[in-house]
């Protein structure tokens, strides 16, 4: 059985060929696009840039960062994902990432939930890290450290 030459099959093949090219073009461009932000446009055609960074001996691993906030009454509280109505990944990558980058606008978006639930505002946030050090023999603990502090200012609407 070879390639069917009848006109209807020809039309079908042409339509399917466009479908194939459409899928290949989208996945191909996602594959060769290195920018993570494009994912929201391409999904479900995504690239796979996980675990791409090189790490070296002596580097600090920081899986257990905590975020401590200073409130406008000068008290300090540790902020958990539930305090902001987030799940683990949103807290870690979304809120945690925004704090590490010092992105005020993004941080305030996440803190709106806290203000709504508790009526309080944070004046500053500090990321405290409990790192481990990578050695040839495995993991070695390291003393805790503050790795970022962000002073927060608000507009009237916030």
């Amino acid at each position, binding site marked *: 059985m070879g390639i069917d030459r009848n006109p209807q099959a020809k039309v079908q093949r042409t339509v399917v060929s466009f479908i194939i090219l459409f899928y290949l073009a989208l*996945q191909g461009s996602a594959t060769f696009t290195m920018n993570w932000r494009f994912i929201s446009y391409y999904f479900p055609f995504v690239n796979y840039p*996980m675990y791409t*960074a090189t790490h*070296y001996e002596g580097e600090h*691993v920081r899986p257990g960062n905590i975020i401590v906030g200073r409130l406008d009454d000068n008290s300090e509280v540790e902020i958990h994902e539930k305090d902001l109505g987030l799940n683990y990944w949103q807290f870690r990558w979304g809120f945690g990432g925004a704090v590490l980058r010092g992105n005020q606008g993004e941080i305030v978006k996440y803190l709106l939930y806290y203000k709504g639930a508790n009526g309080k505002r944070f004046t500053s946030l500090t990321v405290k890290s409990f790192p481990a050090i990578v050695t040839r023999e495995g993991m070695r603990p390291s003393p805790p450290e503050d790795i970022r502090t962000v002073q927060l200012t608000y507009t009237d609407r916030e």
Partner: protein
Amino acid sequence: MSAREVWNNYWFNPAPLLNLAICRIAAVGFQLAFLLWNFQYSNFTVIKGFSEQPDTLYSPLLVLRFLTFPFGSHYRPTLEVVEVVYWITIFAGVLSLIGLMTNLGLVAFAAGCLFLQSFIYSFGDFHHAEAVMMIALSILALSPAGAVLSIDDLRRRLLRARQRSQLEEFNILEEKSPFARWPILLIQWIIVLLYTSAFISKMFHSGMGWMNGYTLQYILIEDGLRDQNHLGIWLGQFHTLLQILQIIVMLFQGTFFLVLIFPWTAVLFLPMGVAFHTGNYVFLSTPFYQWVTLYAVFVPWTQAVQFLSRFRRVQAAQKKVEILYDGQCPLCIRSMTQLRYFDWFNRLAYSDVLKRWPSVAERLHGTTLDDCLREMYVLLPEGSVRKGFFAFREILRHLPPLWPLLVFFHLPYASRFGPPIYNFVASNRFRFKKCDDDTCARPDHSNRT
């Protein structure tokens, strides 16, 4: 040969429909189980959490905007809407799995899965594992994935058998279509592009230095501490082993494209891939079950079944189990058509008892033709005979796709309660099925015994 001919030969060469159907069952079966299990026990909690989050955190993916476009560009689905979509998706998945209105079911299933997943990913929490399954389902929805191994196909064959009033020769392993190849090849291409993406990303960001052993130690320790995965932290001690594993990972991801050029290399790449993803799951807690499930597209199922079929036939010295059926009874023809549908290994011979009676009467000593018409008789190659419930149980043994049913036929007391149930069904079978004409009325053959 022109470029068009090369293209057509590559994508549209007639290929077995069984391969595509098995891929459909694997993909839909997995995704359905994933939806039922993962959503009920995990994702619905996540979705409920999302429903309480402010609009400022809702950033719908483009595909979700497209799917909800009729409701306005700023539409945000409520929890109730998501739940309704979920149950419609489950229903469509069941249709796709059993092959009832297959393409319609697949379109609805693929769209529903895409909606649910893209909604979950519209709150800044994004993962990778699920995307490839969304693409694969949408490709299957556009293909003749339900042309065999489906209720749609079985119904077509039953209708034809009824119209012709005879049992037709067919074997679904031999059914081919020029449109059965492209969906499988396209999913293969997508998987290859994904691994290539992982390889290119590492090379672009880090180059060969990525394979220094410390990188994987770092990853294992970081993810191990985060997820409390002690196995990951334990593995993080073995620097040299991890360096070797990193080299293997790079080789695997960087050369996976070879399966498209030399399909036989799947024998090497698929076990490596299964080991790679299993290792990731055990030591890094990263579940990529979807990818492993979709490896089904690299398996030449038809050839595998045909190879096993030849092997089994040689083992059985080419002797078949013979079923005696009433060739004048449409219901019997219908039953034989159903059995033949699953007789992939060609292990059964179907004989019209009215034609065969003179030659088998002696072998069935003490049995009348009317007995044979009353219940099913099966002649085994070594000379023994099974009838009724035990005949049916024997037949199932030779039809691997129906082996799951054997569990019920071997339950405790099945031998005691099975025969009366079988006899009841057999003696009342004419009442269970409405006929257009009088052909269902069993003719009296008592004078021929």
